[in-house]
C-alpha cells in the first residue's frame, strides 16, 4: 500500500519534471532556431523528454488506475472523465489568460505560443494515457489467454513506436507503415472487447453514456486546440517538431478515439436490453433465496412465500396462488393479489369443465388453460399457467400464475418458473429431512430420559426371608420397554411380589410403569387378596391408560406361615414352577386378562385367585415375554420349552445360579449381545 503510494508520487513528480524540461528545452531549441543561433541544448532533448514524460505518466496511471481493485466500470469512466475535465479546465484557463492579455505583444510571441502548446500537449497526453489505462481494464475484464497476449503485443508495439519516434531515424517507410498498420489492426480487434457493457444496469448505462459523451467532447476540444497551436508554431519554425509527426501520440489517440466511440455506441444500443439482463440477475437472486431459505432457519411457509413472490416477479404475473396439501384432505392456500374466493371460482370452473393438465407440465398447457378461462364469466384473467410442486416424486401442491393479458406467458417464462418450482420442492424436501433429523434427535434424548426413569423404578434391594431367596435380572434394549418387578413386605409372614410388562415403548411405557409402581406400593401394603389387588389396580389404571394400552402383570403373596403362594395372573406370561418333589417344571396356565383391557365389564370375572403349597427346593421363575420371544439367527423363538429345560438343569442350585444359567442359555441361543426387547426375570427359590 505504502509502496504504491510512494510510486504514484514518484512517477507524478517525474512526469512533472520531465514536462518542465521538455517545455524549456523545446522553447530553447525554438529560440535558437528563430534567432539562427547555435542551440545550447541538443535538438533531440525535447523528444526524449516527451518520451520520458509519457513513460512516467504511463506508470503513474498503471499504479493509480490499473492496480486499484475497488474501481467498477462507471468509476473507471468517471476517472477518465475527471481527468479530461481537469485538463480542459486548465486549458480553458490558459485560453482565458491569452484573451485577457489581448493586444499585448505576448500572445503573438512564438515562444509563448510554444509554451501554451506544450501545456496543452501535456494535458492532452495525460488525458489520453488515463483513458488508455482505463480501456485496458475494461478490455481485459474477462481475460483469456489469447486476449492477454494480444494486449501485450499491442503494448509492446506501442513502446517500439515510442522508441522509434525518439531516435528519429527513418529506417524504412515500409517498416513504419507496417508497424502502424499492425498497431491499428490490433487496436481495432481489441476494441471489440465490450463485455463489461452487459454488466451495467439501466442507470449505470445512462451514467456511462454521459461520461463517454463528455470525454469525447474533451478529446475533440484538445485535438482542435493542439492542432491549431502546433500549426501556428510550425509555420514560424522548422526546428519545431509537430505532435502529428509523433507516431506514438497519433496511435494512442486513434486507439482511444476508436474505443470510446465503440463503447458509446455499444452502450447506447444495449440500453433497450438492459432490463432483460437485470431480470436475469433478479432470477438468479430469487433462485438463491429459495435454495437458501432453509439454511436460515425459516419454515416451509416462508419457502412458499418466497416462491410465490419470485415467480410473480419473474414472469410479471398479475396474480398468483399456491395451493399446498396440508393434510390428506385439507389444502392450504397462499395468494398474491387475488382473493381466495376468486381462485376458488377458477379452480371450480376448471374442474367443472374437466380440464386436466393443470398438474402436469405439458408445453401447451398455457394455451389450453387460458382458453378455458375465456369461458369463465366475470374473470379478469385471460392467461393461466400451473406448475406442480413435487417432493420425492409426490405432488404436494400447485403453483398457478395468472395474467390479465391473453397468451401472456412465453416458453422462457415457463422454463424459469418451472425451475423455481423444482427448487422449492427440493428446499421443502430438505426442510422436511432436517425436521425429521431433529425429531429423531429429540426422540433419542427422550429415550435416554425414559431409560433412566425406568432404571430408577426398579428396586435396588429385594425382600428375603428364611423360607426363600429371590434373584432378579433385567436388561433393557435400546428402545425402552416397560418391564417392572418389585417386592414389598406386607407383614411378618407375608411378602408381596409383582412382575409386570407395560405395552408400548419409550416415555409412555416408563410413565405407565411408574403408575404401576405407585399402585403396587399403595395397594399391596393393605394386604388384599391377589384377585382384589388386580381388580383395584384395573379400576385405577383404566382411567390412566389410553385406548389400546394395557399392562400384563402377575401378583404374588408368599405366606411363610401357611407355606402358601397366593397369586393372580392378569395377562402376564404364565409362571414357570419347579416342584422339587416330582423334579418337574411346569407352566401354570390359568385364566386372567391384562390390566386396562376390560373397561365397562366387571373385571373381577376376568381374574382368579390361585394358590400353591410350596415345599423346600421348589423354584418359581417369573419372566417377561422378551425372554420367550427372543429370537436366534434363524428367526426361531427361545420359547417356553427351552426356558423350562434351563430351569430343570439347575433347579437344585441357588436362585442366583439358576438365574445365571438361564441368562447364559438365553444369550447363547440368541447369539448376540444386542437384544430387541427387555429381558426381565425374577427367580424365587424356596428353602
Amino acid at each position, binding site marked *: 500500500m505504502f509502496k504504491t503510494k510512494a510510486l504514484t508520487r514518484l512517477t507524478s513528480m517525474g512526469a512533472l519534471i520531465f514536462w518542465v524540461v521538455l517545455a524549456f528545452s523545446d522553447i530553447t531549441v525554438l529560440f535558437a532556431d528563430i534567432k539562427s543561433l547555435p542551440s545550447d541544448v541538443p535538438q533531440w532533448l525535447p523528444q526524449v523528454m516527451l518520451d520520458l514524460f509519457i513513460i512516467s505518466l504511463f506508470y503513474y496511471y498503471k499504479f493509480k488506475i490499473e492496480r486499484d481493485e475497488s474501481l467498477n466500470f462507471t468509476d473507471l469512466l468517471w476517472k477518465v472523465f475527471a481527468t479530461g475535465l481537469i485538463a480542459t479546465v486548465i486549458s480553458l484557463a490558459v485560453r482565458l489568460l491569452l484573451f485577457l492579455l489581448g493586444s499585448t505583444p505576448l500572445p503573438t510571441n512564438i515562444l509563448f505560443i510554444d509554451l501554451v502548446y506544450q501545456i496543452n500537449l501535456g494535458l492532452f497526453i495525460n488525458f489520453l494515457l488515463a483513458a488508455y489505462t482505463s480501456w485496458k481494464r475494461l478490455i481485459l475484464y474477462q481475460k483469456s489467454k489469447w486476449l492477454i497476449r494480444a494486449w501485450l503485443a499491442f503494448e509492446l508495439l506501442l513502446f517500439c513506436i515510442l522508441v522509434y519516434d525518439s531516435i528519429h531515424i527513418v529506417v524504412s517507410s515500409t517498416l513504419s507503415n507496417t508497424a502502424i498498420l499492425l498497431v491499428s489492426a490490433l487496436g481495432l480487434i481489441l476494441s471489440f472487447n465490450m463485455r463489461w457493457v452487459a454488466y451495467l444496469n439501466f442507470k449505470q448505462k445512462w451514467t456511462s453514456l454521459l461520461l463517454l459523451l463528455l470525454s469525447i467532447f474533451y478529446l475533440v476540444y484538445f485535438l482542435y486546440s493542439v492542432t491549431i497551436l502546433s500549426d501556428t508554431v510550425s509555420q514560424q519554425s522548422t526546428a519545431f517538431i509537430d505532435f502529428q509527426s509523433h507516431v506514438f501520440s497519433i496511435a494512442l489517440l486513434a486507439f482511444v478515439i476508436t474505443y470510446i466511440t465503440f463503447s458509446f455506441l455499444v452502450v447506447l444500443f444495449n440500453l433497450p436490453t438492459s432490463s432483460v439482463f437485470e431480470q436475469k440477475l433478479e432470477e438468479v437472486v430469487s433462485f438463491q433465496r429459495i435454495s437458501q431459505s432453509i439454511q436460515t432457519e425459516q419454515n416451509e411457509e416462508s419457502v412458499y412465500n418466497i416462491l410465490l413472490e419470485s415467480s410473480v416477479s419473474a414472469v410479471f404475473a398479475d396474480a398468483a396462488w399456491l395451493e399446498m396439501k396440508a393434510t390428506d384432505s385439507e389444502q392450504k392456500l397462499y395468494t398474491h393479489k387475488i382473493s381466495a374466493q376468486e381462485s376458488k371460482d377458477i379452480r371450480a370452473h376448471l374442474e367443472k369443465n374437466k380440464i386436466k393438465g393443470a398438474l402436469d407440465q405439458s408445453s401447451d398447457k398455457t394455451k389450453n388453460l387460458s382458453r378455458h378461462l375465456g369461458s369463465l364469466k366475470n374473470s379478469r384473467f385471460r392467461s393461466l399457467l400451473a406448475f406442480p410442486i413435487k417432493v420425492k416424486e409426490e405432488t404436494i401442491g400447485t403453483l398457478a400464475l395468472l395474467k390479465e393479458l391473453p397468451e401472456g406467458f412465453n416458453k422462457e417464462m415457463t422454463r424459469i418458473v418451472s425451475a423455481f418450482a423444482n427448487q422449492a420442492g427440493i428446499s421443502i424436501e430438505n426442510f422436511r429431512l432436517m425436521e425429521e433429523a431433529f425429531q429423531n434427535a429429540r426422540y433419542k434424548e427422550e429415550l435416554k430420559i425414559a431409560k433412566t426413569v425406568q432404571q430408577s423404578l426398579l428396586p435396588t434391594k429385594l425382600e428375603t426371608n428364611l423360607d426363600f431367596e429371590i434373584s432378579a435380572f433385567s436388561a433393557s434394549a435400546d428402545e425402552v420397554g416397560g418391564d417392572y418387578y418389585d417386592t414389598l413386605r406386607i407383614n411378618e409372614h407375608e411378602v408381596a411380589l409383582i412382575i409386570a410388562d407395560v405395552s*408400548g415403548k419409550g416415555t409412555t411405557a416408563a410413565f405407565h410403569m411408574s403408575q404401576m409402581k405407585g399402585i403396587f406400593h399403595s395397594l399391596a401394603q393393605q394386604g388384599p387378596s391377589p384377585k382384589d389387588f388386580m381388580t383395584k389396580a384395573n379400576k385405577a389404571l383404566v382411567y390412566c391408560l389410553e385406548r389400546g394400552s*394395557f399392562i400384563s402383570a402377575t401378583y404374588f403373596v408368599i405366606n411363610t406361615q401357611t407355606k402358601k403362594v397366593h397369586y393372580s395372573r392378569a395377562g*402376564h406370561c404364565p409362571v414357570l414352577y419347579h416342584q422339587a418333589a416330582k423334579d418337574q417344571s411346569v407352566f401354570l396356565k390359568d385364566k386372567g386378562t391384562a390390566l386396562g*383391557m376390560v373397561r*365397562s365389564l366387571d373385571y373381577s370375572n*376376568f381374574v382368579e385367585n390361585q394358590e400353591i403349597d410350596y415345599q423346600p427346593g421348589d423354584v418359581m421363575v417369573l419372566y417377561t415375554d422378551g425372554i420367550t420371544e427372543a429370537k436366534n439367527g434363524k428367526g426361531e423363538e427361545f420359547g417356553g420349552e427351552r426356558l423350562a429345560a434351563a430351569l430343570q438343569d439347575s433347579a437344585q442350585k441357588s436362585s442366583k445360579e439358576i438365574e445365571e444359567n438361564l441368562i447364559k442359555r438365553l444369550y447363547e441361543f440368541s447369539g448376540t449381545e444386542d437384544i430387541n426387547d427387555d429381558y426381565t426375570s425374577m427367580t424365587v427359590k424356596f428353602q
Partner: protein
Amino acid sequence: MVHIKRLQEEGADIIVIIGEIDASSSIELDLAIAKSVGDGYRKILVDCNGLEYISSAGLGVFMSYIEELKDKKVYLVLFGLKERVLNTFSILGLADLLNIRETKSDAKKLADELSV
C-alpha cells in the same frame, strides 16, 4: 412388515392380514379397522391365516376397538389364528374378550348370529 387387504363378501367386510404386526405396522391394522367401521359394516371378519406374529401393540389395536364396536353394534370375529398367535391372545386374556373362531365359515356363522 405387514400386508393388509380388505374384501367384501355377503355383506361382511373381511380384513386379511399377511405378515407380522409390531408397533409400527399396528398403525396399518388400526387404519384398516377404522375404515371398515367408518364404511358402516356391521360384520367384520379378520382373516389371520397369514398372521405370523403379533406384538402387544397389535393386540392393543384389537383391544382399543372392543368398547367402540360394542356401542355401535358392530361384530368383529377373528379366524384362522396360528397356534403361536392364539397363544399370545390367550396369555393376555384377550381371547375371552374377542370373538375367535377356527374357520372362516364358523366366523361368518357367528357374525350372522350376533348381528341378528
